[in-house]
């Protein structure tokens, strides 16, 4: 009787262990995914190929820029988010074609494709040792602004077993009472945001 109970207990334990192993098996995608390099704003995140330091985040309802002698104004159904960063290649020239805005609940906003060739925008060409200012432009929902992360990797496919930069956007423009500052119109013609 005792032996039988012991056998039964062993079988149950084995089943539980197997079930736990089955549930927690890492997927191929997770095993060979990107390696995040985390940093905050005004800190340098060093990935294998480039360094990035996010300097400023701006929000706007409209953006404007000059393109082939014409002034272009773009509206959005949410907010424009403009991220200005200083970037440097580490060992060889390369370019960065896009960035991603990861919201607090994991919604991933790819860089907006609506602005055609605005100045200082991606693709950003980087050279080793030469720091370049570049911008990433997103359309985001207003509720995806707090606790967001900027994700950047070199042009091409998402990195596998290679570094990608995850920058916590923790220094947003806020008024004294903590409300987010949203400009009505931001001009992209100059990097300091002043009107041309």
């Amino acid at each position, binding site marked *: 009787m005792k032996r039988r109970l012991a056998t039964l207990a062993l079988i149950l334990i084995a089943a539980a262990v197997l079930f736990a192993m089955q549930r927690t098996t890492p*997927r*191929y995608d*997770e095993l060979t995914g990107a390696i995040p390099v985390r940093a905050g704003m005004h800190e340098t995140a060093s990935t294998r190929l480039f360094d990035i330091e996010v300097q400023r985040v701006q929000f706007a309802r409209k953006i404007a820029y000059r393109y082939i002698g014409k002034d272009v104004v773009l509206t959005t*159904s949410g907010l424009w988010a403009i991220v200005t960063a200083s970037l440097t290649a580490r060992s060889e020239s390369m370019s960065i074609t896009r960035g991603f805005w990861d919201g607090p609940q994991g919604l991933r*906003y*790819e860089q907006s494709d*609506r602005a055609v060739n605005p100045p200082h925008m991606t693709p950003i060409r980087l050279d080793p040792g030469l720091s370049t200012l570049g911008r990433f432009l997103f359309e985001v929902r*207003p*509720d995806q602004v707090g606790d967001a992360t900027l994700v950047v990797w070199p042009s091409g496919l998402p990195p596998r077993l290679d570094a990608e930069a995850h920058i916590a956007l923790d220094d947003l423009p806020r008024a004294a009472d903590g409300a987010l500052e949203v400009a009505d119109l931001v001009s992209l013609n100059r990097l300091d945001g002043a009107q041309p």
Partner: protein
Amino acid sequence: MRPALGKLKTRIATGVGSTVAVCTATVYTIMGAGTVAPVTQYQPGAQIDAGRWQVVPHRAWISKAERVYGVRVQPGQQALVVEVDLNNRSASSSRAYNDTLKPKWPADAKPENPDVALLRDSKMIPLLHPGMPERVAYVWVLSGSVSLPEKMPIEVIAQTYKPVDNLYGTPLWTNPKVIGQFTLPLDIATAPATGTLPAASSAAGSTERVS
């Protein structure tokens, strides 16, 4: 008698696999021949949840102009334009909306894949972001000799979300299925008035207060 029965038994025993297969096939054929369940009918302006997309149909019209929302229409061709609001219900920005709408074409129409244009600034193949509805136009270019019905039925096709696929463990949208249908009247050769843009998302009111 006995040897004959024995023979029959042996035959059944050896042929049981194929017998089951034949019976199953017959049952499936009979079930498949039954009446197909009617698809859900939606009115213009209804919110249709179609997997990755939420579709709000607005209007449809036929254009014979040279260019409609940036899509070129050759002489002798016509374009069916369907304007809908699209809202991305998935977790990432996407352009995978081409197969979401499928008009029920007359037998002689052989349209190509639609071109999709954003109405906000006539951008082709726009990237649509999660939870941010935008009005877009689907433009199908087809031969000018095809006569389209006055009321065009259009099927809405939804894909199912699979959180992890079996090989890579990545999320996947799969298994396209017709989930409904809406019918829009076609105003032949009416130039579009500037359509009102979709209202900003419901959260837009709380723009100033984001924690």
